[in-house]
């Protein structure tokens, strides 16, 4: 050390830590919540630079009593809300049943979206037919809201002879083009740039469709996320970029992805993108913010980044045990609650739902999921070897099979 250096303490590396570890009680004050109804709703043609405050606030509609309050309270019929509740319930029941199927070794791997159902379901309701979603592995609510046949999904999970993806993808990495659901990669963040490209293509062709991209808080650290923001802004692409901040990327707290002392919505501001931070467990807020962003996109007003604040209630996947790195009862203490319970409370409070109806719909959906599982199982599974043929492995690598792949297929003897 130079003798001229001033006396000072040695440098220290800062490594962020969550405010709660196993056996502790998480201090969720780091979330900086706004009271329901308090955050302003700017017009859809607002300049991104003029609404920077919204990236640090939290748009909320449902108050603690289940009332829809404030300027973001959306125009939506009770019928649509009932449909939304049903789709959320279906998502949760489906997840729970598939989790059991994985434990029973019927499927090799599963990822649930417990606690995050409102984000994908309400967002799907805010989009139009033909819009394309570029999801991660935790947006199965999009598929439920778009009424994709459960048997098809379960066949993918079972990797059986009716798996639409021919056994090539891990369970949950669906592709359902006709439902506007892009093939899930498994590599992270790549889909966000692709969504921007899809949206650019729609604009190039003078189409009216928009794209919606999904990414978790953890993978916003990937360069592709930042690249996507640049391209989306440069070409004013008709795209919505959804950052699902569920606080955890496997065992990594969102502060390690760069969320400490700032927000993920704030990432959009420096890029010149309109950015909102929204209560992701508030069905009405999700719907309202999604509509606002979709209107912007469809009106040639440019992209919107939305950070959905939520909590990953379950493990990352069936290979993960979250009690090893966070308090086991964390979700119960999460201040934004359970999205399903909150919408249910609202619907009951406006007289559009009842406990009895809830029980009967739940039973009906459970039976539906069980029947779908039973039917899908009748088509076989990876476990019992009823999968697509080994010969099919060589198909779709190229549009037409080149000579070297034909030789390799012959070598395998199929």
């Amino acid at each position: 050390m130079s003798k001229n250096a001033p006396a000072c303490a040695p440098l220290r590396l800062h490594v962020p830590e969550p405010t709660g570890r196993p056996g502790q009680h998480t201090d969720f004050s780091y979330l900086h919540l706004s009271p329901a109804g308090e955050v302003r709703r700017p017009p859809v043609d607002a300049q991104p630079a003029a609404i920077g405050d919204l990236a640090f606030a939290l748009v909320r509609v449902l108050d603690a009593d289940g009332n829809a309050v404030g300027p973001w309270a959306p125009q939506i019929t009770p019928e649509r809300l009932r449909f939304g509740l049903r789709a959320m319930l279906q998502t949760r029941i489906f997840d729970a049943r598939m989790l059991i199927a994985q434990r029973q070794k019927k499927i090799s791997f599963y990822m649930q979206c417990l606690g995050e159902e409102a984000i994908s379901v309400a967002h799907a309701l805010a989009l139009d037919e033909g819009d394309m979603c570029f999801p991660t592995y935790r947006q199965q609510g999009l598929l439920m809201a778009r009424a994709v046949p459960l048997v098809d999904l379960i066949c993918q999970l079972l990797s059986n002879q009716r798996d639409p993806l021919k056994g090539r993808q891990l369970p949950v990495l669906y592709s359902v083009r006709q439902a506007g659901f892009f093939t899930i990669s498994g590599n992270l963040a790549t889909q966000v740039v692709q969504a921007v490209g899809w949206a650019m293509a729609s604009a190039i062709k003078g189409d009216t469709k928009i794209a919606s991209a999904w990414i978790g808080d953890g993978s916003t650290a990937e360069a592709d996320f930042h690249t996507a923001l640049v391209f989306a802004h440069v070409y004013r692409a008709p795209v919505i970029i959804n950052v699902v901040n569920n606080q955890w990327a496997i065992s990594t707290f969102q502060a390690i992805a760069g969320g400490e002392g700032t927000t993920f919505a704030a990432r959009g501001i420096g890029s010149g993108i309109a950015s909102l931070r929204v209560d992701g467990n508030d069905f009405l807020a999700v719907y309202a913010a999604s509509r606002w962003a979709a209107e912007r996109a469809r009106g040639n007003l440019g992209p919107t980044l939305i950070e959905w604040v939520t909590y990953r209630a379950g493990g990352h996947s069936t290979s993960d045990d979250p009690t090893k790195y966070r308090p086991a009862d964390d979700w119960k203490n999460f201040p934004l609650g359970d999205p399903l319970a909150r919408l249910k409370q609202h619907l009951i409070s406006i007289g559009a739902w009842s406990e009895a109806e809830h029980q009967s719909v739940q039973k009906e959906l459970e039976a539906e999921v069980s029947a779908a599982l039973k039917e899908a199982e009748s088509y076989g599974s990876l476990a019992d070897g009823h999968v697509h043929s080994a010969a099919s492995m060589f198909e779709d690598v190229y549009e037409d099979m080149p000579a070297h792949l034909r030789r390799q297929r012959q070598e395998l003897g199929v």
Partner: protein
Amino acid sequence: MKTTPMTMIQALRSAMDVMLERDANVVVFGEDVGYFGGVFRCTEGLQKKYGTSRVFDTPISESGIVGVAVGMGAYGLRPVAEIQFADYVYPATDQIVSEAARLRYRSAGEFIAPLTLRMPCGGGIYGGQTHSQSPEAYFTHVCGLRTVMPSNPYDAKGLLIASIENNDPVIFLEPKRIYNGPFDGHHDKPVVPWSTHPQGEVPEGYYTVPLESAAVYRPGSELTVLTYGTMVFVAEAAARESGIDAEIIDLRSLWPLDLDTIVNSVKKTGRCAVVHEATRSSGFGAELTALVQEHCFYHLEAPIERVAGWDTPYPHAQEWAYFPGPARVAEGFKRAMEK
């Protein structure tokens, strides 16, 4: 069809012009390709002719360029993106290797990535280690990709049109040293323009050169030479100067490739040399050597010879010591003729 003398740059531009005209889903973009027309001028005038929504500049982000191309392809467009130098393509690796190459496979055909990624490659222009590389082996290793490298204006246009029309992702490598004329490795001799070469005579309209099809550039009886790009002309000079009657095969499509033309030639000559500018170890020549060994072993009179760039970064001041010029290639030919 009426033909015109064209440089490789003009031929590539003509291919994009033809395809922009024929197919409303073709779009062209990349760094500096819009108003300016590209640092090598390949897209000059195209933005003016087809408008900014079909020919445009992009941010300096190769992962972004390829990523948006994948999304556009999924929508139904046919993107033709330029990577300014092949040396710059690495940030896009994830989008090429994990995404474009496997989109059809992983979605069982629901989504495809019919994109063409043009990129100038190779040395001989004092470009140093970031403007001279030949990265073909990184791509030929990836299932689902097509890798193409033309060696002359006629093939450049026909192969580019075939690549744009193809529904698989194509890595289209353009040897920049031969953009303006064939180069036989004698860097101290005057530059030869394409107008003096028969392959510089190019049809003005639409035509294709099929993919997965090699060309016998120079028929011969004593030695089969497997090569592509600039090295086609270096190999020709080496054959002339060594007096060896080499059959020079210009692979054109590196992968998937035309194995029949290779095998038929080696079975005829009984000897084989593989020549490329890229570094030697684990280079594409290793695959070619293995294929010849697997398919022609009992016809071989001698070990297969490899001549390639040294396993060093591409140097700036030592360019001609690095570049496998005609003398080094001829030495390889002679070794292949021994025994």
